[in-house]
């Protein structure tokens, strides 16, 4: 992706325009990924902001020839989410039912939908990092296999395979929960 390489080179010099373009290109996927993991809009916004501020601090040392830029951003997002959960676990132990009751007292159907959503989020969190990235880019951002492959530095076949493994693993995790 030579265009992205040029943008990154400019962004490393702290060029505001290049940074804004890179941000616009990836903010959707990163936000969706974090939102899928944490399930709360305000929290997803805070953590997304952290990711891009970290991107700004770290871009000088980013090596384009190593991991693709999108994968690098997903890694920062993953670490940030893990940090958040670790911190939460130390602070308090909140059970699933407590989290659901905090969502408000709606009709039973709403609570059931929230419960199903929460279970799906938890199962999503158990996938490998690569599987999570493919799921977000394919079903969240609606990208094709070729586009996902370009972003993550993988072949179309590898994306297809990751997608299948991700969905079967998700189904397995959800079945175990029942």
């Amino acid at each position, binding site marked *: 992706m030579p265009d992205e390489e040029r943008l990154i080179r400019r962004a490393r010099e702290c060029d505001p325009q290049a940074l804004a373009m890179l941000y616009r290109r990836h903010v959707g996927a990163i936000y969706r990924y974090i*939102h*899928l993991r944490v399930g709360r809009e305000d929290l997803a*916004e805070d953590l997304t*902001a952290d990711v*891009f501020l970290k991107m700004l601090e770290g871009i000088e040392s980013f090596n384009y020839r190593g991991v693709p830029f999108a994968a690098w951003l997903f890694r920062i997002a993953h670490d940030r989410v893990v940090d958040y959960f670790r911190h939460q676990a130390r602070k308090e132990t909140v059970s699933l039912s407590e989290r659901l009751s905090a969502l408000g007292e709606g009709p039973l159907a709403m609570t059931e939908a929230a419960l199903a959503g929460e279970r799906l989020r938890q199962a999503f969190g158990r996938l490998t990092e690569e599987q999570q990235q493919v799921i977000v880019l394919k079903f969240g951002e*609606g990208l094709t296999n070729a586009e996902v492959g370009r972003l993550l530095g993988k072949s179309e076949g590898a994306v297809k395979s990751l997608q299948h493994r991700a969905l079967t693993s998700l189904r397995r995790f*959800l079945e175990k929960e029942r």
Partner: protein
Amino acid sequence: MVKKGLESLLDESLERLRKGEKLEPSAEELESLLELASRIQDISTPPTEAFVGDLEKRLVERARALQRARRRSFWERYLNSIFSLGRVRRWAAVLAVILALVLASAGTAIAAQSSIPGDPLYPVKKGTERLRLLVVRDPSRKTHLRLEFTRRRTEEIEALDDRGEEVEESILVELATETEETLEEIEVAPEGNRETLFEKLVHLTERQQEVLQRVYDRVPEQAKPALETALEVSSRSHERAREAIQRGRPEVPPGQEKKEGTSPPEDRGKGRDRH
């Protein structure tokens, strides 16, 4: 083989769903995977436009601050290489006296002050300026000095162009850096002086932009990005100074202008109606 078959079937089915096509009922296993994909789509929400816009603004501001800090650290390193910063305050007075004695001799001082980049006495002029900035402790005087030195940089570019000499990249970078630093100092200057300082900066940046536009076609190709940056910094500083002046003045309610109209018309809106 069976796994490969399902993998492809799943992918084809997902692609058809992505395009909005309807699917015929198929194998149970495939259906459950497709349903799962659809549930993920349902709970995956995009960020709001307001959030995306706000965060972009924060990022751009942070990037600009980082850029400024980098430029500043370049100058600090440069100064450090000339003086040991830890001792600078102690020795500043002594150095000032020595430098004053040197400059007092014959026309060195005068000649140095009117020198431009490339002249043998130009480093003396720049050295004196740096020393003056280091010695002066009063923030208000320091800001006035910065304005004065930024004005000098602008005039130097004009003088180089008049002489038909090349305006080098380093001079343009310096102009942009000094303009930005001047703006930053004015923004934190004591309130009493701020408006006057902003007005001076408005006039100065107006002049700067005229000069930079004038030399645009004559600077070497490799210096063009620096010139564009200098123009951008100048124009941004101009706008920020004008906005600050406007913010600092009380709004006159519509229809009341005439009741208060004791000042001559040319004074009204001074610093506001430029551009």
